[in-house]
């Protein structure tokens, strides 16, 4: 009885904490948008609707997001089939390389694109020399540039999800179809596509939400083309806070609407678990076809990895030595040394590490508590807890940053509001909240996979709650906890969207230092930071997912 009571208290505390840090700031933003000097008002909403720039930005957000989904699908699905279904030379390595953009923080991708395709970029200069042009062949600006970056960084969702679904296809189903006289196309249409549908819908949703919330690419490449996240920042810079609130609310509404549409669209049953063996890869017999497929796969991989490679290359070039040559004439490690030698340059590294660590620890603790409570206790308000843990995912980063900035810039302890903006704690809090969905999803999956009778076995052997948690639950959840933690750390470590709205000089993270280095034309240092960000992310990510393969029977 007392144990059940304690669990209820725990659930209530967790619920209160989540309401306070997830829902409350969003509600405050919504309220701020409809509040005037005396009471409620719709003035700001009316101004928003009547402003052409706002309407254009809203429309821009919508269509670029839809176009990003189409482009990412166009790139990702064929790659998934190529790697997942065909036996290519070096297929395993290729498969891994193609997943790399998943760990590339958005801003680093944008910067890499700038180095590659920008006006003074590697490829642009090469083309100018080859074609003897006076001007760069293109300008990396506007909607086209944004879409290019989006397609490049978001094809990964389609690629990874579709590839996983292809692997989970039951070979005997394909054989059954063949024995029932279905040809290749009928098999694809009637068996493979329905099996892939959940993956396709999931990838489309993921891409749409990421594109809708995307900030780095529009911020750097947008130029005169505005999408809602950049529009919100501009409006705030103009000091029109309440209009910015309405804009924020409109973006949140768009995101939630999309989520709702996808939910109703994907009501069909998923592929579910597989019983049989995965189909073996198709071996291409004709030599010419085999070479062509290999060239296509590796060629695309090279094209997609070019930004990473460029970043690495630029990070070894001393400032101002590489102007018109196709390859840099001089190399140096000075850019890296500067990161550690110069106290001003070390600071962002240290900041990003401690803030990401704190945010990760918090997100893991809250996610674990939430997952355990909602899995074990029928009494706990589990749907509410699960919903609150997932909510930040549906809200674009800019919206959350504004919401936190609004909620925690005044001191009203009785209303649960404290001044955190401008302090050390606002960024870790922002990272933490933004990480809750991804972390809790990883951990909840681990908790669901736990056999509940293990808990009961421990209890019948006289182990109390604490001992069971320490000796049984946490050791068994280790892979899920590490996976959740690594995802959280990587996201927080490379964050740009929330950071740019909430940072102070003392808490400036790596991403902002990259931006300011670029502004000061310190290209080599910016690239070095980018490489560090990329490497740390890749290593942490690999650690987390490598642990996921550990034994977890029972």
């Amino acid at each position, binding site marked *: 009885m007392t144990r059940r009571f304690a669990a209820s208290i725990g659930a209530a505390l967790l619920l209160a904490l989540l309401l306070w840090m997830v829902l409350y700031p969003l509600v405050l933003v919504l309220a701020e948008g409809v509040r005037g000097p005396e009471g409620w008002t719709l003035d700001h909403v009316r101004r928003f609707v009547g402003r052409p720039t706002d309407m254009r930005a809203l429309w821009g957000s919508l269509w670029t997001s839809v176009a990003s989904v189409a482009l990412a699908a166009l790139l990702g699905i064929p790659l998934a089939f190529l790697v997942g279904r065909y036996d290519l030379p070096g297929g395993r390595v290729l498969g891994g390389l193609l997943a790399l953009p998943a760990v590339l923080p958005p801003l680093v991708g944008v910067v890499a694109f700038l180095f590659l395709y920008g006006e003074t970029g590697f490829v642009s200069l090469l083309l100018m020399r080859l074609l003897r042009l006076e001007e760069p062949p293109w300008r990396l600006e506007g909607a086209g540039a944004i879409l290019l970056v989006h397609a490049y960084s978001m094809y990964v969702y389609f690629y990874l999800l579709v590839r996983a679904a292809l692997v989970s296809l039951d070979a005997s189903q394909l054989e059954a179809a063949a024995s029932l006289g279905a040809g290749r196309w009928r098999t694809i249409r009637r068996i493979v596509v329905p099996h892939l549908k959940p993956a396709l819908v999931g990838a489309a949703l993921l891409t749409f939400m990421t594109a809708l919330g995307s900030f780095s690419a529009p911020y750097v490449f947008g130029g005169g083309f505005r999408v809602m996240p950049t529009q919100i920042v501009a409006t705030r810079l103009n000091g029109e806070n309440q209009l910015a609130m309405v804009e924020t609310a409109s973006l949140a509404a768009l995101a939630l609407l999309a989520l709702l549409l996808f939910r109703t669209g994907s009501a069909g049953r998923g592929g579910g678990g597989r019983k049989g063996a995965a189909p073996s890869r198709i071996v291409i017999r004709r030599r010419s076809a085999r070479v062509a497929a290999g060239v296509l796969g590796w060629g695309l991989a090279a094209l997609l990895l070019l930004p990473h490679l460029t970043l690495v290359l630029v990070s070894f070039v001393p400032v101002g030595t590489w102007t018109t040559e196709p390859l840099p004439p001089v190399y140096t490690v000075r850019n890296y040394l500067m990161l550690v030698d110069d106290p001003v340059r070390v600071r962002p590294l240290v900041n990003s590490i401690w803030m990401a660590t704190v945010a990760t620890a918090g997100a893991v603790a809250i996610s674990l508590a939430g997952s355990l409570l909602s899995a074990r206790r029928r009494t706990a308000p589990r749907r509410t807890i699960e919903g609150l843990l997932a909510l930040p995912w549906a809200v674009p980063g800019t919206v959350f940053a504004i919401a936190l900035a609004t909620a925690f810039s005044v001191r009203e302890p009785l209303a649960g509001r404290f001044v955190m903006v401008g302090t050390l704690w606002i960024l870790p809090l922002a990272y933490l909240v933004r990480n809750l969905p991804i972390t809790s999803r990883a951990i909840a999956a681990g908790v669901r996979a736990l056999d509940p009778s293990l808990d009961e*076995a421990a209890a*019948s*052997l006289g*182990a109390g709650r604490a001992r069971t948690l320490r000796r049984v639950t946490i050791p*068994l959840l280790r892979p899920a906890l590490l996976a959740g933690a690594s995802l959280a750390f990587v996201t927080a470590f490379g964050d740009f969207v929330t950071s740019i709205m909430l940072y102070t000089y003392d808490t400036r993270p790596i991403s902002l230092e990259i931006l300011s280095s670029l502004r000061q034309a310190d290209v080599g240092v910016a690239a070095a930071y980018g490489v560090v960000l990329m490497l740390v992310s890749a290593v942490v990510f690999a650690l987390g997912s490598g642990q996921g393969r550990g034994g977890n*029977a029972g």
Partner: protein
Amino acid sequence: MSAFLTVEGLTKRFDRTVAVDDVTLSLSGGEMLALLGPSGSGKTTMLRLLAGFETPDAGRVLVEGENVTRVEPVHRRFGMVFQHYALFPHLDVAENVGFGLESLGVRGTELGERVTRALALVDLAGLDGRRVDQLSGGQQQRVALARALAPEPRVLLLDEPLSNLDPTLRERTRREIRDLIRRVGITTVLVTHEQDEAFELGDRVAVLRGGRLEQVGTPDELYAAPANRFVGGFVGRSSVIPVTVLGPTEWGTRISVEGVEWEVERPAGQPVMLPGAALLLARPEALRLGDDPQAIAGTVTGRRFTGPSSFFTMLTASGATLEVVAPPAAVREGERVGILPSRRAAGGLHLFPAEQP
């Protein structure tokens, strides 16, 4: 013998369904009781109520007179072997077996000794450091038994102990479990849906249906004197045919079946049945094949060969199906032959009121 474990009026509801309905039972010390029933009969819920994983809506569980109904599983000191064993996959064999002992504060050399002893008991000496996923199904089951027994619990609970084993392994394991539990002398409750298992492992068998206790008794009692048609049909092989009760005779009941008259023995203590419609439950060995004026006519529709004898499925004129045991070559499929009560088998024919389900 006085009762060691007593269950009084135990009731458990889930939403609107009653999983366990007013069950009262008692076990003497060292006794093995098998809870037998089809799926959904509430036998697993019974076991979970005993273990303390579920809290009853009514009733009590007593161990040596102590009321443990509200005692948490952690403090109940009931050992449990789970259907899928629930071994801790990240701990090795010795750590699994020692887990409950550590809860009791056993440490150091004593811990090691008692783990070794428990493993020797289940014939797994020397496997201490093995990972549990490297063990065979039978070994895993024995580790689960050793783990449950090591802290010397007051009662041992087994949930479908053999359901996860290879059929060829089951019979041997059944005997091993029985011998082991006899040796330890622990009061045991086990759940099963297989009557062979219940008969071999249980000193007594409790038959459950829809959460209600239908009958409890030794296997012989259940077979020879089923309390109702359900127990008769669930325990042992049998077939059922509608009959009309004509009236009592000196030692039994006169009935009319398919136009002929039979006499059925009445067990001692059972009330006289009133004339009218009834059901006759017949064991295969209580019937025989033969031509006789008292025989009912039947057609052979199937044969199940079991070696020394065969079970013949017979279709009667009224459309009832009866199973009769006879020598393998007695009749051929499609043949018409009479069915009679067997002279030797006493107690293989049971009458139940027709309205009883």
